[in-house]
């Protein structure tokens, strides 16, 4: 299996922030969600991949190419979508094509026109006249027009309504359907990942908490619920975190530890619940 993105022992520190020894790989043909609370290093990681920030140490390979030594080649295979549009606000959509296409030898004008039609973007419209969802689709249309193999999206769904978010997920699953494209997708709206993501990389305050298949990630933990008197010392010791309230408690417990509590209500945990219960900020939650 070819890896489209390899991050090895990546570290970077500036100010009080430290991104510490991050490693993960995204194989060809899959979607990976990059998750974690705000300030965990998701955007920093993406900026390091794009060489918009210089790394302190580690290695990054995009389709097997070093992201700094082979930057030009690597970036020709890369599409990027940020949460805010990076085109000049006063450009018309057609001018965006003129400006962007010169950088990509493989630019397919027909495809771009077709995508504008599919996404219902009029070429004469100015960028600033487009809604947030439309601007995102314009960035996607650009990336698809030079057949970017790896798409990197930083918080693409924040500020989008549910309809646009659903459209985006649809576009991404069509993008990877042929098995030749991959997506790295940072978000804190984990509902978007719950179903469509194949892999999850979870950063927690600069450190790697988990990287692997989403099903595996969700299967790591269970939510155990019960009445206040059912919260034993054993359970307290085994729980990752417990939240108590007058009528009972909720605890996140490693799946392998749930055997002893089969008398209580045990449910699968959502990505959101795992995030909330495992983040340090959740301290005041307990």
């Amino acid at each position: 299996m070819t890896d489209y993105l390899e991050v090895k022992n990546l570290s970077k520190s500036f100010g009080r922030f430290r991104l510490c020894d991050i490693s993960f790989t995204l194989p060809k043909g899959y979607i990976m969600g990059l998750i974690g609370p705000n300030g965990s290093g998701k955007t920093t990681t993406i900026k390091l991949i794009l060489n918009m920030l210089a790394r302190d140490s580690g290695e990054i390979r995009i389709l097997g190419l070093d992201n700094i030594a082979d930057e030009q080649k690597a970036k020709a295979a890369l599409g990027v979508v940020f949460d805010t549009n990076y085109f000049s606000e006063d450009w018309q959509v057609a001018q965006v094509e003129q400006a962007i296409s010169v950088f990509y030898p493989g630019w397919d004008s027909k495809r771009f026109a077709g995508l504008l039609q599919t996404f219902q973007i009029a070429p004469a419209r100015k960028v600033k006249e487009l809604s947030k969802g439309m601007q995102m689709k314009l960035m996607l249309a650009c990336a698809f027009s030079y057949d970017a193999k790896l798409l990197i999206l930083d918080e693409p769904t924040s500020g989008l309504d549910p309809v646009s978010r659903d459209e985006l997920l649809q576009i991404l699953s069509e993008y990877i359907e042929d098995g030749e494209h991959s997506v790295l997708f940072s978000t804190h709206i984990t509902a978007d990942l719950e179903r469509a993501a194949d892999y999850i990389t979870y950063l927690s305050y600069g450190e790697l908490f988990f990287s692997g298949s989403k099903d595996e990630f969700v299967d790591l933990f269970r939510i155990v619920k019960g009445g206040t008197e059912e919260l034993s010392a054993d359970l307290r010791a085994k729980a990752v975190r417990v939240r108590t309230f007058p009528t009972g408690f909720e605890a996140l417990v490693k799946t392998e530890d749930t055997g002893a509590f089969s008398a209580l209500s045990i449910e699968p945990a959502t990505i959101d619940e795992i995030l909330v219960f495992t983040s340090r900020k959740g301290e005041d939650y307990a």
Partner: protein
Amino acid sequence: MKLILSNVSGIPIYEQIKRQVKAAILSGELKEEEALPSLRTLAKDLKISVLTVTRAYTELEQEGFVRNVQGRGCFVLGSSSELMREQLIRKVEASLAEAIKAARIANLSREELQQLFDLLLEVNTDD
């Protein structure tokens, strides 16, 4: 074949796919040599992870329901296949064990249970 996935059932998505494909094969709705939907297309259509569908298909193959042909897709093995027969026998065993358990609770004697079994066998010969 229809596939309906529930988000609230608590059963993992891959397991739901497996169960429904198995049911379709055992009921004869999916015929021998018929192709399952392409893995990646199914993932796209159901808006689920490719890995989830991969897991469902791989386990179906391991359990002898389908055959994976590299680059061509996933095909239903006939119910005559040895593994499929084994699956069916296991299902019969499990159901009988269940019946025996219920019979013990109801204090049925061995003879009574056998009579009941013969009676049901006769009633159901038409299917």
